[in-house]
C-alpha cells in the first residue's frame, strides 16, 4: 500500500524515526528504578530455600537489630488486614506472604524494610526462618495421579491437584475421522517452562500520602488501568479507593507478558507505604526474577494427526497437561483457561478437531503467562507445525508441497475453523511461495541431497503459522470481568497540534511513534505534532493494556475511530468557514475542500483554530474525541518461515545458516518498526528452540535460576534475519492492520526444530524436544550411530 500522506505528515506506511529514541540514547528514559523520592525506603524479600515446607517460626529480631532496618513484615502481619492472599487474573488465589507454608523454592516468606537497599539485603540475610519440609510434587502428570500429596490445602474442599479441564471441538467427528484415516501419527511434544527475562526486572515505587489518602505507584506494568482496579478491589477494605489510586507505568524495559501479573512484591510495597506513610521502592534482582516471577509454557502435549492416502489432512486430536505451578496465575481472558490454544488447527483446512487441556498444581512458581505471544498461541502453532512436518516426512512428501496441499484456500476467507474461530483473512500460499523464492528452496533441497551422500547433516525447516491476536470482542473476552476493549482520547489544540492518550502501554514497541502516525493518517496533522501519552491512569482513558499483540488491533483502532469523530466535527466547522454545505465538502488528509474547487479549502490547522476562536453557533467549541473500541473479531496475522541449519557432528551444535521470514500483518503503520518487531520476535523464537529452559530437580530446586544457566541469545548466535512481507488487510479493522509484535516468536520455533529434524530424519529421528542443545543433538547422533 503506497502511503496516502506525505513524508512530512508521516501517516501510515512511512518509516519515520522513533520519537522515543532521543531520550533513550541520551540515557534520559525514566524507568521505575530511576524514580527517587524524598524519604524513600527500600524493600527486600526473604525467600524460601524449600519447594514445599511448613513455616514453623520466623524470627526477625537479629534483622531488627541492624541499624537502618525499619521493619520485618510477615504473612501474619498482612493477615491482620486480610492482605496475605490475593486473587490471580484467573480467579485463583496467590499468597502475598505465607502464614503457614511455602509452595515453591524462592517464594516470598517475609519482607524487610530499610533505609537503604544494602541494609535491606543485610536484613534479609539476618531473618531466621525455621521450616519443616513437606513432600514435593514437581511432575504435573504425577500431580494428577491418585494419592499424590494435595498441594492446595488452603482450599477446604480440594481433594486433588487438578485445576481445570477444558475442551473444544467435535469429539465424535474427530474419532470418526481418525477411524477412517489411511495414515495417523501420534507424537508427545513437551514445551518447557521458560521465562521472558526482560532486561529490566519488575519493580515499583509506592507512595501513600496519609493526609490526602492518595496512593501513587510507579509500576512496571503492561496494564496500568486493570492493576488500578485490582488494587481498589483487593484493598478497598483498608481504605484505598479507586479515585485515589494512581498507577503510573513509566518507561518499561521490555515486557513480553512478564509484566502483566501482579507480583507479591508490588502488594507488599504498597502495604508498606500505607503502613509507614513513606515512599517504598522494591526492585527485584535477576535471580528473584528467574526463580519466582510467573513463567510461560510448560505444556505436555500429546498430538495426533490423521490424513487420507493422498496426503489430505482430515483431523487433529490433542491432549495436554498444563503445569501451572502452585496457582493458576495465567494471564488469560477469563473464559479461556488454555488461552487461545484452540488456534491449533493453524493454517490447515482440517474438517475435524478435538482438543483438551487439563491444568495441574505443582510445587513451582505460578504461571501460564505469555512469552511474547498471544495466550498460548505459540504452543498451538508449534504443535500443529511439528505435526504437519512429521506427517509430510512420514508420507515421504516435500513439506512445502504438503503444506500447500492442505492450506486453507485463499478464496475461502472469512473461514470458520473446526475449533470455532472465524479467520478474518489470509493467503498462506502467497507467503510460503515468497519465502521459498527468497531462500532458493529448490536449490537448497538439491544441496541437501548432495550433502547427505557425503554424510553431512543439513536441514530445511518450514513453519507456516497462523496467529490469533487483538483480544478481543467483549462478548467473549474479559479479564476479571473487565471487557477487553481499548481506548483513545485525542485533543486537537488551537494551533493544530494534538495530544493523544491511549489505554495501552508500550514496553518498547514504539507506540509514541506509531500511534502518532495513526492520528496523522486520519487527520493529516503531522505525526511530529502529535504527542502520545500512555500509562498514567489519572490521565489516560481506561484500557486493558498492551500484550497479546493487541495494541494496534484495539487501541490503534480506537485511535482511528476517535480521529474520525474529530473529522466529523471538523467537517461542520469547515462548512461554516467555507460557507458550504457539509455534503459538498471532500476530505483529503489534512484538509476539507469544496467539491470541484480544490482551492476553496480549509486545513485541519485552520479548522482547529476556528474550533476555539470561531466555532459555528449551535455546536460546542473545542475539537476532541474519545473512542472505546470493541473489536468485532480477532485478527489473524500469518507468515511462512524457512530455516536452514547445519549440524556439527562433532559437537552437536545447531548452526542456523539462513532464516527467511515472510510475515503478513495486514496494512503496516511503520515498516521500520514492524521489521524491528519481527527481528526481536524471531530471536525470542530461537531462544527457547535452542537455549532457554527452566527445570527443576526432584526436590523442586530450580536448575537455571540465573543468567549463568538461563541462556539468552547473544549477537553471536543470532543469525542475520532475512525478512519480507505479503499484505492481506484485515477486513474488519478500521486501518486494515492486524498486529505483529509476537508473530515471529510464535512462528520461529517450529521452523528451527523442523529444520533440525529434517537434517536427521533419514537416520530415524522423528522428534527432539526443545531446547535442542548441542548435548541433545550429540546424544541423538550417538544413539543413531553417527558420532562416537
Amino acid at each position: 500500500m503506497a502511503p496516502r500522506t506525505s513524508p512530512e505528515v508521516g501517516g501510515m506506511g512511512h518509516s519515520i524515526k522513533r520519537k522515543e529514541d532521543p531520550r533513550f540514547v541520551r540515557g534520559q528514559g525514566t524507568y521505575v528504578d530511576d524514580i527517587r523520592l524524598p524519604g524513600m525506603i527500600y524493600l527486600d524479600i526473604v525467600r524460601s530455600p524449600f519447594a514445599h515446607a511448613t513455616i514453623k517460626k520466623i524470627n526477625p529480631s537479629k534483622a531488627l537489630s541492624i541499624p537502618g532496618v525499619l521493619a520485618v513484615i510477615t504473612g501474619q502481619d498482612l493477615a491482620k488486614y486480610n492482605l496475605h492472599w490475593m486473587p490471580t487474573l484467573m480467579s485463583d488465589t496467590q499468597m502475598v506472604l505465607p502464614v503457614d507454608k511455602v509452595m515453591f523454592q524462592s517464594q516470598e516468606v517475609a519482607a524487610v524494610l530499610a533505609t537503604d537497599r544494602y541494609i535491606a539485603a543485610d536484613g534479609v540475610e539476618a531473618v531466621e526462618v525455621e521450616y519443616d519440609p513437606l513432600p514435593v510434587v514437581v511432575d504435573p502428570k504425577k500431580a494428577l495421579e491418585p494419592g499424590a500429596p494435595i498441594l492446595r490445602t488452603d482450599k477446604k474442599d480440594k481433594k486433588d491437584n487438578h485445576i481445570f479441564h477444558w475442551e473444544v471441538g467435535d469429539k465424535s467427528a474427530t474419532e470418526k475421522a481418525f477411524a477412517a484415516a489411511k495414515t495417523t501419527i501420534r507424537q508427545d511434544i513437551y514445551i518447557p517452562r521458560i521465562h521472558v527475562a526482560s532486561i529490566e526486572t519488575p519493580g515499583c515505587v509506592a507512595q501513600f500520602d496519609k493526609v490526602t489518602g492518595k496512593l501513587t505507584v510507579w509500576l512496571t506494568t503492561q496494564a496500568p488501568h486493570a492493576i488500578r482496579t485490582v488494587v481498589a478491589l483487593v484493598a478497598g477494605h483498608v481504605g484505598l479507593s479507586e479515585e485515589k489510586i494512581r498507577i503510573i507505568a513509566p518507561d518499561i524495559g521490555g515486557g513480553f507478558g512478564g509484566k502483566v501479573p501482579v507480583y507479591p512484591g508490588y502488594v507488599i510495597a504498597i502495604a508498606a507505604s500505607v503502613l509507614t506513610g513513606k515512599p517504598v521502592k522494591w526492585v527485584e534482582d535477576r535471580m528473584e526474577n528467574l526463580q519466582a516471577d510467573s513463567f510461560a509454557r510448560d505444556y505436555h502435549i500429546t498430538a495426533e494427526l490423521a490424513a487420507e492416502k493422498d496426503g489430505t489432512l482430515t483431523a487433529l486430536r490433542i491432549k495436554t497437561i498444563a503445569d501451572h505451578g502452585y496457582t493458576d496465575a495465567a494471564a488469560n481472558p477469563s473464559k479461556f483457561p488454555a488461552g487461545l490454544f484452540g488456534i491449533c488447527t493453524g493454517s490447515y483446512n482440517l474438517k475435524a478437531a478435538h482438543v483438551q487441556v487439563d491444568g495441574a498444581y505443582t510445587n513451582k512458581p505460578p504461571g501460564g503467562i505469555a512469552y511474547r505471544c498471544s495466550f498460548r498461541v505459540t504452543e498451538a502453532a508449534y504443535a500443529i507445525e511439528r505435526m504437519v512436518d512429521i506427517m509430510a516426512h512420514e508420507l515421504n512428501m516435500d513439506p512445502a508441497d504438503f503444506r500447500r496441499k492442505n492450506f486453507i484456500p485463499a478464496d475461502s476467507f472469512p473461514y470458520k475453523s473446526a475449533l470455532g474461530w472465524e479467520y478474518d483473512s489470509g493467503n498462506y500460499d502467497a507467503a510460503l511461495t515468497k519465502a521459498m523464492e527468497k531462500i532458493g528452496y529448490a536449490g537448497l533441497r538439491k544441496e541437501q541431497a548432495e550433502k547427505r551422500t557425503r554424510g553431512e547433516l543439513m536441514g530445511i525447516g518450514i513453519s507456516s503459522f497462523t496467529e490469533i491476536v487483538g483480544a478481543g470482542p467483549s462478548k467473549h473476552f474479559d479479564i476479571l470481568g473487565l471487557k477487553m476493549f481499548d481506548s483513545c482520547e485525542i485533543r486537537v489544540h488551537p494551533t493544530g497540534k494534538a495530544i493523544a492518550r491511549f489505554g495501552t502501554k508500550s514496553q518498547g514497541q514504539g507506540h509514541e511513534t506509531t500511534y502518532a502516525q495513526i492520528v496523522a493518517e486520519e487527520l493529516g496533522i503531522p505525526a511530529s505534532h502529535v504527542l502520545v501519552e500512555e500509562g498514567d491512569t489519572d490521565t489516560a482513558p481506561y484500557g486493558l493494556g498492551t500484550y497479546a499483540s493487541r495494541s494496534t488491533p484495539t487501541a490503534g483502532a480506537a485511535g482511528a475511530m476517535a480521529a474520525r469523530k474529530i473529522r466529523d466535527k471538523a467537517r461542520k466547522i469547515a462548512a461554516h468557514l467555507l460557507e458550504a454545505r457539509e455534503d459538498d465538502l471532500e476530505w483529503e488528509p489534512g484538509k476539507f475542500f469544496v467539491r470541484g474547487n480544490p482551492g476553496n479549502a480549509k486545513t485541519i490547522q485552520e479548522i482547529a483554530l476556528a474550533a476555539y476562536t470561531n466555532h459555528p453557533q449551535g455546536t460546542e467549541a473545542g475539537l476532541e474525541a474519545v473512542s472505546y473500541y470493541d473489536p468485532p473479531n480477532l485478527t489473524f496475522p500469518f507468515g511462512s518461515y524457512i530455516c536452514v541449519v547445519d549440524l556439527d557432528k562433532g559437537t552437536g551444535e545447531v548452526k542456523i545458516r539462513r532464516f527467511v521470514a515472510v510475515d503478513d500483518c495486514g496494512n503496516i503503520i511503520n515498516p521500520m518498526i514492524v521489521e524491528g518487531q519481527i527481528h526481536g520476535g524471531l530471536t525470542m523464537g530461537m531462544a527457547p528452540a535452542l537455549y532457554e529452559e527452566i527445570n527443576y530437580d526432584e526436590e523442586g530446586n530450580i536448575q537455571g535460576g540465573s543468567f549463568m544457566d538461563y541462556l539468552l541469545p547473544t549477537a553471536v548466535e543470532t543469525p542475520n534475519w532475512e525478512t519480507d512481507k505479503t499484505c492481506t488487510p484485515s477486513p474488519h479493522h478500521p486501518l486494515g492492520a492486524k498486529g505483529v509484535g509476537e508473530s515471529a516468536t510464535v512462528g520461529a520455533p517450529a521452523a528451527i526444530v523442523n529444520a533440525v529434524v529434517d537434517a536427521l530424519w533419514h537416520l530415524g529421528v522423528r522428534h527432539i524436544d526443545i531446547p535442542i542443545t548441542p548435548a541433545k543433538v550429540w546424544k541423538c547422533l550417538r544413539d543413531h550411530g553417527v558420532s562416537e
Partner: protein
Amino acid sequence: MANRKIHVKVNGTPMEAEVEPRLLLVHCIRDTFQLTGTHIGCDTSHCGACTVLLDGKPIKSCTFFAIQADGRSITTVEGLEQNGTLHPVQEGFCQEHGLQCGFCTPGMMLTAAAFLKENPKPTEQSIRRAISGNLCRCTGYVNIVKAIQYAAAKLAAGG
C-alpha cells in the same frame, strides 16, 4: 568497615563521594551521582546493561566496587553527547532503529563506542563478537549491528 572517600572523573567532571567499601560502582553512579542512564539487568555481569567506560575501557559496573574506581575516569551514557552533538553511535542507533525498549541501549552504545575506537573498520562478525557481552531482548541485534556500522562509517568520514 569505615566509609572511604573516592575521587573520580565522571564524564569529564571531577566528583567525590563518601562510599561504603562494598558499594557497587553502578549504585554509586545511579544513586550517589544520580546518573540513571546506566541500568541494572542481572547482577552477575552477563547482561551488560550496566556497562560504563573506565579509563575508556568497557566494564560491567554491577560487579565493580566504587572504591576500585578511585582516581579514575568514568564515561556513562550521559557523557556520549558532546556540545549538543550526538556521538555517531547514538545517531546510528536512532537512524537504524537499533533500540526498542531502550533499557540495554546505554550499555550497548558504550561497548560499541569503545570498540570502534580500537576497530575503526569492523566486520559484521567482529561487531557481533564485541557486543556479545551485552544482551538485548527486543531487537534481535540485526539493527544494532547496522547502527554500529553506521557509526563506523560516520567516524571514518571524520565524525
